[in-house]
């Protein structure tokens, strides 16, 4: 014998390999490939048969492999009686159905390779499921079977029904599986292991364990199609019939029952368990049977019958006593055989006649006599006629339920009632099935004989084998008893039961006969039953609930999408801001108190400035013109500068004012190409919401500002700075010393970034070469010089003296003025510019050199120079800019960076550190004492970089945009009509 431990793994791998190779095999052999593939599940069944002796003696093979040690999950397999039975069913029925497949599909049908792959893959997953001894591993195989079943149900992919059915099946069973996963994690957490053997041996108790068990049962119910989670099974009948026979009769739907049987020895004593089993099983048993009576589609009839039988199995295997468990195991085997056989027979009838609607079938038994006999055998087993397996199982079940014993009395009675009712219904729909498929019906015309195709042997043999098998097994009830009772006896309570073919005249037999008679009676009055059913619809259909849930979820999602995903930037930002208010703001509100004393050190002036800023802010928000908004924002900035000043930081104030001004200028340059007004204002309600969010954010941030200083533990570093600035930096302007000395490395980095930014702006704006258009007026041939704005309306025209628009050089205040149409020029502006320009430059130089000790410095000086250039540009147009600074900005940027770097490196030559400040006191003839500090050169570098940046900004955002405007005929000085705002990308619904 093979080493039994690894054989199982080999079998699983064989399934995987066969699944992978199936498409190729099918492409070689056509549908005959199914015969080859049948060997794979067949060998699993054969292996199980070979292990029978070992299993019966309780020494079935086990195997453990390390899988995900990090999560404490092993691969554990074992073959005990229950697994043995399941492997036999899964492998045996699987092999037979594959044989059936080889004749069922027409050789021309497409996608057979894929179908074969999924089918064998499913068989492998099922084999893994029933041999798993680890709950997580079991879950993995469980979901694998779901996926394969999804793919198999969806085989006829173009039919809408099969698409819906497949989706329904996978959603319900996966959802159930995930519920089960929670149960698994719960129970694994409680018992510290996922090993099923260990958990059942020492089941954890307590409310959590009860919850876990309930969740596990919900998972089982979803898989085994127990009411109310049964509705996917009838829908799944859209699958090809072999799939129905295998998945929905023998294998997959048994997985839930298997889980019940697995856990029952540990948990059958729980009240919650008993209640769940009774409700799930009992309702399935009765409702499934009832529904089966009204079906006209033979497959649907079988499907509801399966729901009913699965309920019965759940009851028997979950009730908890040994005798019922034994009966349940027997029925498990019997059901797999007769139900699969019946499905195959229905498939045969379908294939032979082209219909499976019993209203169209009549006298088929004459055309398909052998098939009819097979169906009769299987049906006899189903309704429990002796001497079939079904009879043996049901007698044992009835006997054990009558004896009761372990479980509480009410449960016994309730189960018995359900059992009796269900069995009567089973007899009735069983007869209806055979009658519907084969009997001669007076009211229905026979199908013409020529159109009935005789089934080939390969199609008939599997069904026959399964049907006759039900007979054969029953003849040896002692053997079944011997093989199955080891597992039944692991149940905690009750006397061991027995399987017998002829029990003698017991009460059970009498009841059985009664049930048979009642069932036959019910079948006899089938017309009346059908009419009654037609008028009495069930009140609540689980399928409807499912559909409504999905629809509701869809609508809900659509509503949410249109609510939240508007494509509106302000809305998105509003949400983020709101969260800032809620989360950190909440932390502040809960965790701190405001400081005891809030002093307004600035006194009245501070209040005034504050009021100014507030007013400017309100006006900004209310303004509809872009330019107005920008200017008002500028006022808030100037207000901030005044606050700096009031707090004794003139240098900061100076920088702030300059930056604010420059920003304003840049804004204006950019705004020329934007619509004058903001796009339409939002609705009033929206505005209030925005206002609310804005105020909330403001309050929160203001709160932060008040709360944060309380966290201070150490004295601020700024305390010692004034002395150290003089001592080490040689300057009394602390800000400047910080910039050029203390944190000179940072400044270094910043000016590099400035250079990069300037280059970036320029390269984004200049579509062509950067150097081309810095031409000055004098570079142009006279007469060719373009004049901007000549076509503008000119209300002053009658007043102008002709011929003065371009006077001689000596009359000009600004040389670039020539390039502007008269109506664009302003004498006052030009004169003022002429006066101010050089003054500003001198002032800038003064700031640059005095910056080390007084407010100023390279940055401020650079900004003032930039402003001076901006004034020239605004007054005289782009040619004036070229006139004012006939330099390439790159030159300024580069030399600035060079100077800064160089002056940083010089101290190394003097034996110091990089960027260390060296102070020289020299006496220069004529000038006198010069106090030379190396960091001044660094500052000059900063100055040049800032000027370069400003020039670049003016040239790109100013002059170049002018030029592009001229080139495209789009007058850049005129504000264009408001553009239509781009429609937001909205969700497609």
């Amino acid at each position: 014998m093979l080493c039994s431990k690894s054989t199982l793994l080999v079998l699983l791998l064989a399934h995987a390999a066969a699944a992978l190779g199936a498409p190729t095999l099918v492409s070689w052999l056509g549908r005959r490939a199914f015969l080859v593939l049948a060997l794979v599940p067949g060998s699993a069944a054969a292996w199980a048969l070979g292990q029978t002796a070992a299993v019966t003696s309780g020494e079935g093979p086990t195997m453990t492999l390390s899988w995900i040690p990090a999560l404490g999950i092993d691969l554990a397999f074992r073959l005990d009686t229950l697994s043995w039975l399941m492997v036999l069913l899964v492998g045996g029925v699987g092999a037979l159905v594959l044989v059936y497949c080889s004749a069922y599909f027409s050789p021309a049908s497409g996608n057979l390779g894929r179908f074969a792959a999924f089918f064998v893959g499913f068989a492998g997953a099922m084999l893994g499921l029933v041999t798993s001894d680890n709950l997580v591993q079991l879950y993995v195989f469980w979901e694998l079977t779901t996926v394969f079943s999804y793919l198999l149900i969806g085989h006829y992919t173009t039919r809408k029904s099969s698409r819906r059915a497949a989706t329904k099946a996978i959603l319900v069973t996966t959802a159930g599986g995930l519920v089960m996963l929670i149960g698994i994690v719960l129970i694994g957490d409680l018992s510290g292991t996922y090993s099923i053997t260990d958990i059942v041996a020492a089941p954890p108790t307590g409310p959590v364990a009860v919850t876990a068990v309930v969740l596990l049962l919900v998972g089982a119910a979803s898989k085994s199609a127990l009411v109310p989670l049964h509705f996917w099974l009838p829908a799944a009948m859209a699958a090809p019939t072999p799939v129905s026979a295998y998945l929905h009769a023998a294998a997959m739907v048994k997985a839930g029952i298997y889980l019940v049987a697995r856990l029952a020895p540990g948990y059958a004593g729980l009240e919650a368990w008993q209640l769940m089993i009774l409700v799930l099983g009992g309702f399935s048993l009765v409702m499934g049977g009832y529904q089966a009576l009204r079906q006209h589609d033979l497959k649907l009839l079988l499907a509801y019958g399966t729901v009913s039988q699965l309920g019965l199995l759940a009851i028997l295997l979950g009730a908890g006593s040994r005798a019922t468990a034994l009966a349940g195991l027997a029925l498990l085997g019997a059901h797999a055989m007769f139900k699969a056989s019946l499905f195959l027979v229905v498939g045969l009838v379908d294939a032979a006649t082209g219909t499976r609607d019993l209203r169209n079938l009549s006298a088929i038994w004459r055309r398909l006599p052998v098939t009819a006999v097979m169906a009769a055998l299987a049906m006899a087993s189903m309704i429990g006629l002796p001497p079939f397996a079904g009879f043996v199982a049901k007698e044992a079940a009835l006997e054990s339920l009558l004896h009761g014993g372990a479980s509480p009395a009410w449960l016994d009675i309730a189960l018995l009632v359900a059992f009796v009712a269900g069995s009567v219904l089973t007899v009735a729909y069983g007869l209806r099935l055979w009658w519907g498929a084969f009997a001669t019906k007076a009211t229905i015309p026979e199908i013409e004989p020529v159109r009935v195709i005789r089934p080939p042997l390969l199609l008939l043999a599997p069904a026959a084998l399964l049907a006759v098998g039900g007979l054969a097994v029953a003849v040896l009830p002692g053997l079944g008893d011997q093989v199955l009772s080891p597992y039944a006896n692991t149940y905690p309570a009750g006397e061991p039961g027995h399987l017998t073919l002829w029990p003698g005249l017991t009460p059970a037999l009498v009841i059985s006969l009664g049930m048979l008679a009642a069932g036959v009676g019910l079948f006899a009055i089938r017309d009346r039953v059908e009419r009654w059913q037609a008028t009495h619809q069930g009140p609540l259909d689980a399928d409807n609930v499912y559909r409504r849930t999905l629809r509701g979820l869809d609508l809900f999602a659509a509503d949410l999408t249109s609510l939240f995903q508007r494509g509106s930037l302000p809305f998105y930002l509003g949400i983020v801001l709101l969260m800032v208010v809620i989360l950190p703001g909440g932390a502040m509100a809960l965790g701190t108190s405001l400081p005891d004393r809030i002093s307004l050190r600035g006194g009245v002036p501070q209040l005034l400035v504050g009021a100014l800023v507030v007013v400017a802010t309100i006006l900004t928000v209310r303004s509809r013109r872009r330019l107005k908004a920008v200017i008002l924002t500028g006022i808030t900035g100037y207000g901030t500068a005044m606050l700096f000043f009031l707090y004794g930081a003139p240098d900061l104030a100076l920088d702030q004012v300059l930056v604010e001004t420059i920003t304003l200028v840049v804004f204006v340059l950019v705004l020329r190409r934007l619509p004058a007004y903001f796009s339409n204002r939002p609705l009033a309600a929206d505005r209030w919401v925005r206002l609310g969010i804005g105020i909330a954010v403001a309050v929160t941030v203001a709160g932060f500002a008040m709360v944060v200083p309380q966290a201070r533990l150490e004295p601020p570093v700024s305390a010692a700075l004034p002395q150290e600035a003089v001592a080490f930096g040689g300057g009394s302007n602390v800000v400047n010393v910080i910039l050029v000395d203390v944190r000179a490395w940072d400044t270094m980095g910043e000016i590099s970034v400035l250079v990069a930014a300037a280059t970036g702006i320029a390269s984004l704006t200049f579509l062509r070469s950067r150097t081309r258009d810095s031409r000055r007026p004098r570079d142009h041939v006279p007469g060719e010089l373009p004049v901007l704005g000549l076509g503008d309306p000119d209300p002053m025209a009658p007043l102008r003296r002709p011929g003065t628009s371009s006077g001689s050089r000596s009359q000009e205040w600004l040389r670039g003025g020539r390039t502007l149409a008269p109506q664009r020029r302003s004498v006052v502006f030009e004169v003022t510019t002429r006066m101010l320009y050089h003054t500003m430059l001198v002032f800038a130089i003064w700031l640059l050199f005095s910056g080390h000790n007084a407010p100023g410095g390279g940055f401020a000086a650079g900004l003032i120079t930039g402003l001076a250039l901006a004034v020239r540009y605004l007054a005289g147009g782009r040619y004036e800019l070229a006139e004012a600074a006939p330099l390439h900005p790159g030159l300024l940027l580069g030399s600035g960076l060079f100077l800064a770097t160089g002056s940083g490196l010089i101290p190394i030559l003097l034996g110091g550190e990089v960027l260390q400040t060296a102070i020289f006191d020299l006496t220069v003839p004529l000038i006198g004492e010069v106090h030379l500090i190396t960091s001044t050169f660094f500052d000059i570098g900063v100055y040049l970089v800032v000027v370069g940046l400003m020039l670049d900004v003016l040239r790109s955002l100013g002059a170049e945009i002018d030029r592009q405007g001229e080139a495209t005929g789009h007058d850049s000085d005129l504000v264009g009509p408001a553009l239509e705002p781009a429609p937001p990308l909205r969700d497609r619904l």
Partner: protein
Amino acid sequence: MITPPEISWLAIAPDLALTLGAALVLLVDVQWKPVARVHAWVSGVTVAVAAGLTVAQWIQAAPADALAFSGLITMDGFAIFTRLVLIAATALGLAAGWRFVAGLGRRGAEAIALVLLATSGFSLMVASNNLVMMFMGLEVGSIALYVVAGLARERRESEEAAIKYFLLGSFASAIFIYGVALIYAGTGQFEIVGIRDLLAGFVVSSPAVIYIGVGLVVVGLAFKVSAAPFHAWAPDVYQGAPAGLVGYMATVAKVAGFAAIARILLTGVLDLSGSWLPVVAGISVVSMLLGSVLALVQGDVRRLLAYSGVSHAGFIMTGVVGGATDAVLFYLAIYAIQLIGAFAVVAVVAGPDAAGSSIDQYRGLGRRSPLLAGAFTVILLGMGGLPVTSGFVAKFGVFTGAWAEGYEWLVIVAVVATVVALAFYIRVIVVMYMDEAQEEGTLRIGPERWVLVLAVAATILWGIFPASLLDLAADALPI
């Protein structure tokens, strides 16, 4: 006199390699104007060198050298693992987006350089032990990504995506750095390890400032990882940005963002977990539910992936709640590969530079291109977390982590969200296999092929044999 700090070049070697590679791409482009193949070689070698250097870090790494550059940078397993994920994402992302990059012509070099720079930024971010350093990395990475989003200049959607991403993203960065400042105000520390030691050793008198700071930092980073309710940008950006590179963009931002979240919360302020755990759990719940539900009705696969990304952010957050660094890392690695794979499919179906990708384009994909549809199916099932895919192991890991920390309710919500999420993944699969194709013609697959092969292999192989990657993640501990 300041003594210059000890410089451990190895600690930043991968980032240096990436930056130099980016510069090299640009230089080569300016100098020789070569064909795209040359750029492929340069960028490929760059990524390979960076990966090699990262592996060298892993081999070299000893607790003693964990901190470099005066505590700015760490070389702990956490950083190395995340960096490897980022570099892998870069390689895959460039492969998936290669047809787009090559189609850009002269601007292709810019795209490559931006991608490499973004990776180097995020790589610095995940390795930084200093909050300001982290911000630097975040900005280098983010700014490069803003530009990448707008690379398809001809299309308005791309511009819209870029500007939205830029404006909202800069705002989030500002919130982040505000938080950093407040954390500094509360602790006097920028170093994450220093903050941890401080909180472990002292009772902080006014922790509220730290709470506020942590809150702001969490808001800023939650934006970057597109967790709800900070996710609003994601669908618009995922839809508008060039199809080829969206996967990369989404992935690296998410990986780096979560690495930062994990490092700050689980290393830095773990002692204050009582204050932030409920917040993170709340964000997690909102993300999982909102993301899963909203994805149900998306008619555009890219928006669907964006919302699924929101729900994944929620799932990963459950791992953060559980304090399971290894589970978070495993999840990130798996999700990174799957996300890039999914967008590679989008790039093939919709075209490498397209905006949007209506679900109609996927109808009948199973027949038009069985292998592509098969790969997408595997990836989607992996994202859905079905067993035997690595997605299951990833989800299981973070869920058990949260469970062990007593957040059972969170796990239950997560499972509910998983079920809902499964519905929309399956919906796409159904459309691919069970609908008639609306478009005809064969699909051109370029280098995306390799991305798909790897994504499918990673999804299945690490689903069946997850131990190798899990062990690696378990070794990748933060300092």
